[in-house]
């Protein structure tokens, strides 16, 4: 058997094995059609293989297996994040909506529904969004885990934002079962001129596959802050798929601490003129099992749009960080302003950072800059702090937080940023040298 044919067969077998125990959820005609199409997409693409270019730095194996590795829920006595902030809380336990623990799904300026209720209906506006942005994303690179998500997700939220909503919606993902394998899919449409802030917090499950599709209409804004659960053994593959209209704004920040395996993909399409997209992330990893991957693909397909990618990682004791970021500027996307920076601070020689920044530009009046650095802690600065009486561990934490500060500055709301900072400070206390 030729090499490529053999590879094809392996991919087919792995895909079949993964799909075998899964069942397409029952629903209305439109949803069933969308899900069947998604199953067909997964089968056509096949699940990733370690030799695929897009999965070169991150082994997909733990997401391929039909069985999952158990992951204990991490007990912590820290105060809940943003406890004093007025939020609409929507709780999922191991990937299943918990009505009792959630607030009423009603908030002025938006309609909130549960995915299961939406897909049960014969007709719903979400038909034009559910799986649609995910499908578009494969034009550049296949993302089979996202298609698998569309096919089999039975829970999540569907939100239509019609006004400027001041109170954030917080999706809280609790992880209780050691063997939970959750698939969550949410769709958000921010109508013309509307605004919302979405918060996502928690580990969700032992293994999580999560997709968020966000349609941002003209003059609309979407702010997003995510804190991925600190459970040490959890695994997550996530995808954010967004499309921006004229003069719209997308701003997303993710904090990742702990977890053995995290792959966060984000696919952004700037389709209206003068739109602005920012994606940022901070990640702190401790231990050789820790692997964190940020994979971003931004397409500029309109005039005078701006995009920013700011990713910072702090790695120690053999942890691995990955960044794959691409900016594609289409021929008509003149006056594009693209910025990309990915930086890692390695606290020892055993940790590693693998980066693949890419620019593909077909327009001629464009400003795109990108940079990627890997470095150690500044010994001069460390000694300076110690010489003033600051103990080494505390001085290190101060320098590391200073390193991460640039990414945290991408968070719009200072109160949200404050919560993120407290979480990081707590992490450094727990992980003091």
């Amino acid at each position, binding site marked *: 058997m030729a090499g490529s044919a053999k590879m094809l067969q392996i991919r087919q077998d792995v895909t079949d094995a993964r799909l075998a125990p899964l069942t397409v959820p029952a629903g209305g005609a439109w949803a069933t059609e969308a899900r069947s199409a998604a199953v067909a997409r997964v089968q056509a693409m096949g699940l990733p293989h370690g030799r695929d270019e897009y999965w070169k730095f991150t082994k997909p194996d733990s997401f391929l297996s039909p069985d999952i590795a158990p992951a204990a829920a991490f007990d912590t006595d820290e105060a809940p994040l943003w406890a004093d902030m007025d939020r609409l809380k929507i709780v999922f336990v191991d990937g299943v909506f918990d009505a009792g623990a959630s607030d009423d799904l009603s908030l002025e300026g938006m309609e909130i529904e549960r995915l299961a209720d939406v897909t049960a209906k014969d007709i719903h506006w979400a038909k034009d969004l559910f799986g649609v942005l995910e499908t578009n994303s494969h034009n550049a690179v296949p993302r089979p885990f996202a298609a698998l998500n569309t096919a089999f997700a039975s829970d999540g939220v569907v939100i239509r934002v019609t006004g400027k909503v001041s109170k954030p919606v917080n999706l809280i993902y609790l992880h209780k079962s050691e063997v939970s394998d959750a698939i969550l899919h949410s769709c958000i449409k921010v109508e013309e001129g509307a605004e919302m802030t979405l918060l996502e917090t928690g580990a969700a499950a032992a293994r999580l596959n999560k997709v968020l599709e966000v349609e941002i209409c003209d003059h609309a804004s979407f702010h997003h802050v995510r804190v991925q659960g600190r459970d040490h053994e959890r695994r997550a593959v996530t995808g954010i798929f967004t499309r921006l209209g004229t003069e719209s704004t997308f701003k997303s920040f993710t904090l990742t601490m702990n977890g053995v395996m995290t792959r966060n993909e984000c696919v952004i399409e700037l389709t209206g003129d003068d739109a602005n997209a920012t994606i940022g992330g901070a990640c702190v990893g401790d231990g050789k099992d820790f692997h964190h991957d940020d994979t971003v693909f931004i397409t500029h397909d309109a005039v005078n749009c701006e995009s920013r990618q700011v990713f910072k990682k702090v790695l120690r004791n053999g942890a691995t960080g990955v960044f794959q970021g691409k900016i594609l500027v289409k021929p008509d996307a003149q006056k594009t302003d693209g910025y990309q920076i990915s930086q890692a601070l390695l606290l020892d020689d055993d940790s590693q950072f693998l980066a693949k920044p890419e620019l593909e530009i077909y327009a001629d009046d464009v400003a795109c800059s990108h940079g990627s650095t890997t470095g150690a802690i*500044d*010994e*001069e*600065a460390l*000694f*300076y*702090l*110690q*010489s*003033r*009486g*600051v*103990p*080494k561990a*505390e*001085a290190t934490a*101060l*320098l590391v*937080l*200073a*390193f991460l*500060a*640039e990414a945290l500055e991408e968070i719009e709301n200072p109160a949200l940023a404050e919560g993120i900072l407290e979480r990081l400070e707590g992490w450094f206390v727990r992980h003091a040298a």
Partner: protein
Amino acid sequence: MLEIKDLHVKLEEEDKQILKGVNLTVEAGKVHAIMGPNGSGKSTLSYVLSGKGGYEVTGGSATLEGVELLDMEAEERAAAGLFLAFQYPVEIPGVGNMTFLRTAVNAQRKARGEAEMSAGEFLKVVREKAKSLKIDAEMLKRPVNVGFSGGEKKRNEILQMAMLEPKMCILDETDSGLDVDAMKLVADGVNALRADGRAFLVITHYQRLLDHIKPDVVHIMADGRIVKTGGPELALEVENNGYADILAEVA
């Protein structure tokens, strides 16, 4: 206060002896100056005393009020009362000057088993001391030394010294890169801190700084040793005749 006995130091990475038997005693309340040509080991002495890495002590001792400094971590030496004003203060992007000062003050207090300073109390004290050094609120907010001029960096060193109230202050070429006015400002800051329970070791190339910070004792260092000790007149001799005569005399 500070007692250095037969201190021998080499570079950690290469077989190069820098200090070859330094003997020096600085009494409480006094200002000692160390002068000497380039490469004589002045800065190395200041780094070794404050605990910088990269050096290996091959012999001798250095005690502060009878306690051996050389066994301690840099932060422990600071808490014990040692302070080094850097020749080249380090820029730390992302760390606010105020946060840095407060962290340092409280870390030392904690190490000594004292109560930490409240935010309000700290702010009051720092504003007062900053004012006398002509350090404005903007400089306190900015990241540590980032974008500071040469003079601002040195004033910031003196502000740290004023906040930390050390017993033994080492000033490593604090006059380098300063114009006359800036030097006077820095010297005034240092003089304001002179006290019975505090001693200074001023390392400099030039007599000029010693016009403003009047030393009680002047040492000449050459080739890793103190080769001559005298009164303030020794600094004037160096200014007028250079080091050649003195070195020839002790050779």
